[in-house]
């Protein structure tokens, strides 16, 4: 009995055919689903794409930024993902960021003091740009929303006790670095505009 069901010897050709066919079938079965599911990762990590198109959005005016504390703005960016919230068709939705804007050290520059509008020259814009902090309110530790504490005169995170100065620099707690800083520009009429891009890299959750 045992002899009768003995295995037949495999020839080299059969072995190669089986290996080749096996690899082919294996590739057909595994590669498409993996690429399908990893699509967004491939777009973001491999092709360097982002969900938020490269657009400028208005935050507010330099004349609105108070002395000694940051001002919070809500800025809506377009966002392209699988479908868009609140719209019947797939396409562009929106993502809203909270943006903290403060003067360097809380000191309001002389140029904007006591004014609510005005025309800025190129050199004035350059000077103001150096004095302005335009930051995301997402804590750099775990992404919780931070807020200005008037009593402590610091920016605090409610989750794990991250502490930042009014300039967004890291003072204490677990955050690895200061607050995420938007790429921004100041227009001649004092309007601050930002791009959904950050000086320190990708914050992921903003």
């Amino acid at each position, binding site marked *: 009995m045992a002899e009768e069901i003995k295995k037949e010897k495999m020839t080299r050709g059969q072995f190669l055919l089986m290996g080749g066919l096996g690899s082919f079938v294996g590739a057909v079965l595994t590669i498409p689903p993996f690429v399908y*599911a*990893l699509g*967004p*990762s491939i*777009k*973001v*990590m491999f092709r360097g794409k*982002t*969900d*938020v198109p490269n657009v400028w959005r208005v935050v507010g005016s330099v004349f609105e930024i108070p002395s000694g504390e940051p001002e919070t703005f809500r800025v809506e960016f377009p*966002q392209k*993902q*699988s*479908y*868009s*919230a*609140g719209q019947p068709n797939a396409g562009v*939705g929106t*993502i809203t960021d909270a943006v903290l804007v403060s003067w360097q050290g809380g000191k309001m520059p002389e140029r904007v003091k006591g004014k609510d509008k005005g025309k800025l020259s190129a050199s004035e814009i350059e000077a103001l740009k150096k004095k302005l902090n335009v930051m995301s309110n*997402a804590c750099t*530790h*775990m*992404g*919780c*929303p931070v807020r200005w504490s008037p009593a402590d005169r610091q920016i605090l995170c409610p*989750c794990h006790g991250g502490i930042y100065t009014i300039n967004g620099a890291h003072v204490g707690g677990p955050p690895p670095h200061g607050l995420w800083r938007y790429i921004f520009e100041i227009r001649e009429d004092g309007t601050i505009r930002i791009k959904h891009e950050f000086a320190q890299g*990708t914050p*992921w*959750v*903003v």
Partner: protein
Amino acid sequence: MMARVRGRMRERGREFAGWMEDRTRIISIGEKQLYEPTPKRGMWIYTLGSATLFLITVQFLTGILLLFYYVPSTDHAWSSIYYIMKDAYFGWLVRGIHFWSANLLLAVIGLHMVRTFLSGAYKPPRELNWVVGVALILIVTILAFTGYALRWDQEGFYAWEVGMKIASYTPLIGGWMVSFLLGGDTVGPATLSRVFTIHVWLLPALLAPLIGVHLFLLRLHGEFGAAFEYSERLAKLRKNRQAEELEELLGPEDGDDGTPRG
């Protein structure tokens, strides 16, 4: 008359049981499970595994029910849960059970792990069952976390953001992990779809077969502590079964309806 009917019924029953046994081995399997020797000392803590299995079954059942109303979209996720809680008949009960038994499950599965560790039940030949168990506890944890985010309320939303930031600290593949879980580089509608897929299909589909493997390995080696602590009970059991088999072989004097049994 009654005795005769009863006897016939019993015979039919026995015939059916025999038929099933021949085709599925269901009787001998059931017998093996029911008469399995288990440790007597500290027997209550040995029920934690069964409690975990029960709670996971409850999760599957109530989860199926929740899917009748839940809508996995950023517009409707929260409001569909609100509907379940306020309008759907017994919706509060179904979601309450899903929520609270999920909490309880995490506690019970942790205790089960502690019991296994303290009683040394991970020792040879049961190491692989420990490994499978660790995989199971990880899957259950991720299930709990994704379930949290599916509510799409402030709490669940920010919990998921924090989770994403944790994932972003993964060495080497942090960015790949986060963009895979977010469905992009920001939190958005694709994120909820992915959380939903992971919670409702991917992980349960992984969980179920792994539970099967866990139980198979448990049955293969027996409950820990049973073999050496209760060898005398085992011997007694074996003796009883032998007696039963002997009786079967010889047959009783006569059947209930008076005819000798073939």
